[in-house]
């Protein structure tokens, strides 16, 4: 039984990481082939540095992901606060369901319907190019919003509602009470929501594909368009770099987390000691 479970675990890890490992190995291949490894070289990394068009699409992807994250985090947090304050149970669950729709909807339906809507309004205003950076950003905000709301709502529910009330008792204006008392309490949720929104936006292909306009192509769309010929190992090099950047970010955030929880623990212990 024990060996069986070990084999199973090993298989799970192989299927999870073998594709990434192969991609990383072949990004150092001297030749263009995906089947033959003919020697170690940094050739594709060098070619990537000189490939302005690809680097521009990376920049586009980051600009889009960052702006979508900022907007959807602000809007999502505000929406969560609003939803949390609703008294009527029916309205509340109705709104919750509606905000979940972009998340549960298949990407391709979201993408096509957004494109149709943009084209419809574009036609109404007599434009032949209704898609642009703006439409792409609106779409990304649309599908990022539910993730933020979903992360912030539980934090609001956990929060003691008397905290902001107490702040107001002590002379805060409602706005100030919100920023001084509510925001610090729900911050972990806001941050997780923002990270989720960022990753969703970063790796989205389907919706971007349908809503991208002239002059603003993201990396996933660009790679897809390379399939007339083969995708060059330059892209493996780029994927490898992205993978390691994200890996380091994850490691750092994990260490930071541990650090913070340790500090919190020490504080708690100190307080307990004081009470005694």
């Amino acid at each position, binding site marked *: 039984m024990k060996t069986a479970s070990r084999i199973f675990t090993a298989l799970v890890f192989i299927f999870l990481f073998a594709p990434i490992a192969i991609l990383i190995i072949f990004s150092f291949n001297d030749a263009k082939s995906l*089947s*033959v490894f003919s020697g170690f070289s940094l050739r594709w990394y060098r070619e990537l540095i*000189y490939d302005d068009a690809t680097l521009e699409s990376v920049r586009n992807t980051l600009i889009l992901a960052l702006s979508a994250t900022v907007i959807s985090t602000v809007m999502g947090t505000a929406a969560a606060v609003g939803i949390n304050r609703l008294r009527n149970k029916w309205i509340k669950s109705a709104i919750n369901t509606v905000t979940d729709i972009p998340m549960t909807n298949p990407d391709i339906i979201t993408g096509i319907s957004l494109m149709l809507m*943009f084209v419809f309004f574009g036609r109404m205003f007599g434009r*032949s*190019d209704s898609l642009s950076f*703006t439409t792409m950003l609106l779409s990304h905000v649309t599908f990022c919003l539910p993730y933020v709301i979903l992360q912030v709502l539980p934090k609001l529910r956990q929060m003691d509602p008397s905290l902001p009330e107490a702040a107001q008792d002590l002379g805060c204006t409602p706005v100030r009470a919100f920023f001084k008392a509510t925001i610090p309490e729900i911050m972990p949720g806001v941050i997780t929501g923002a990270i989720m929104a960022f990753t969703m936006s970063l790796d989205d292909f389907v919706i971007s594909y349908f809503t991208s306009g002239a*002059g603003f192509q993201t990396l996933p769309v660009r790679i897809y368009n390379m399939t007339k010929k083969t995708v*060059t190992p*330059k892209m493996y090099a780029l994927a490898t770099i992205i993978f390691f950047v994200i890996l380091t970010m994850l490691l750092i955030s994990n260490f930071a987390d541990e650090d913070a929880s340790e500090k919190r623990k020490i504080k708690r212990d100190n307080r307990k000691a004081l009470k005694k």
Partner: protein
Amino acid sequence: MKKFVSLVLICTFICLMLTSCGGETLTLKVYNWGEYISEGAEGSYYTIREFEKWYKAEYGQKVRVIYDTYTSNEDMYSKLSAGAVSYDIAFPSDYMIERMIKEDMLEKIDFSNIPNYSNIDSSFRGLYYDPQDQYSVPYTYGIVGVIYNANTVDEADADGWDILWNPKYSGNILQFNNSRDAFGTAMYKLGLDVNSTDKSDWDKAAEELKTQYPLVYSYVMDEIYNIMESGEASVGAYYAGDYFTMLDAQSDDVDLRFYYPEPTNYYVDAMVILKGTQNKELAELFINFMLDRDAAVANAEYTYYASPNKVVYTDDEYLEELGDETIEILYPPIDNFAEQYNKYAYRNMSPDMLDYINALWEKIKIN
């Protein structure tokens, strides 16, 4: 609180509006296939930037080229015809140009702005999709040939389309995974017209494909690269330009060769100006620039497809860069290209016929 949130929202939207509208510099929007133009990798010629530079020097005005890519003719067509995007220039293939002319999506080109049009070989005039040469300027062309691994295939069998039906190579043959190309190989083999509107012709070809079915290793499109490079299969049909990509990456125990069976399929990709262009003259200048020696040679070297531009295939640097063997394969002697092309190239079929062909194709593959 409400006011604050709405203020933030209004501000962001105003910002977005401003960024999306842009300023007053001239813009030219180009829509091309992915990896179909030299983009300055490893210090090579960056076509788009060079055009901007050239225009600035020549006319003293700044021009910004917006350059986007698509992955198939259909992909481009659907985005343009939906009115989702607008571009000034595109690079569709022959049959798509015919369709776009019919649907009034293309602008007639004023050739007085394109003196370099004389660089295009005269055998590329009067092609079926644009018989009066009013709408398009050829960019690349290609011919379907047979690729085989000389280590496993007998040199003597390497002739005509029969090799794809040769039982000697059972389990080592690759066939196109798209109805038009697959039927094409069978119809050329049988000497049928690939644009036939007679359903019985297609039935005959379907029979031929059925007899081939047990011999086929796999039905492929892009996958052919890896399969041929590694020697997994011995023989398959594909475009000459793509053969060189495979040659570049073949394993040590594979020796890929190439030949043209007769007759075979040709395609031409051409530059067109789209209806609704904001600055037609600028688009024409861009096309003219693409036909100029430097740009044309750089792009032909980058794409590895044959160029209909005389200046390219007589250029010493280009000939040296590609080598005699490559040139021989890329530019086979064709007497009267236009006639061959108009006779053997695939054309648009009526939706009715396409349905019929696809139904036959599905049956073959389920078998």
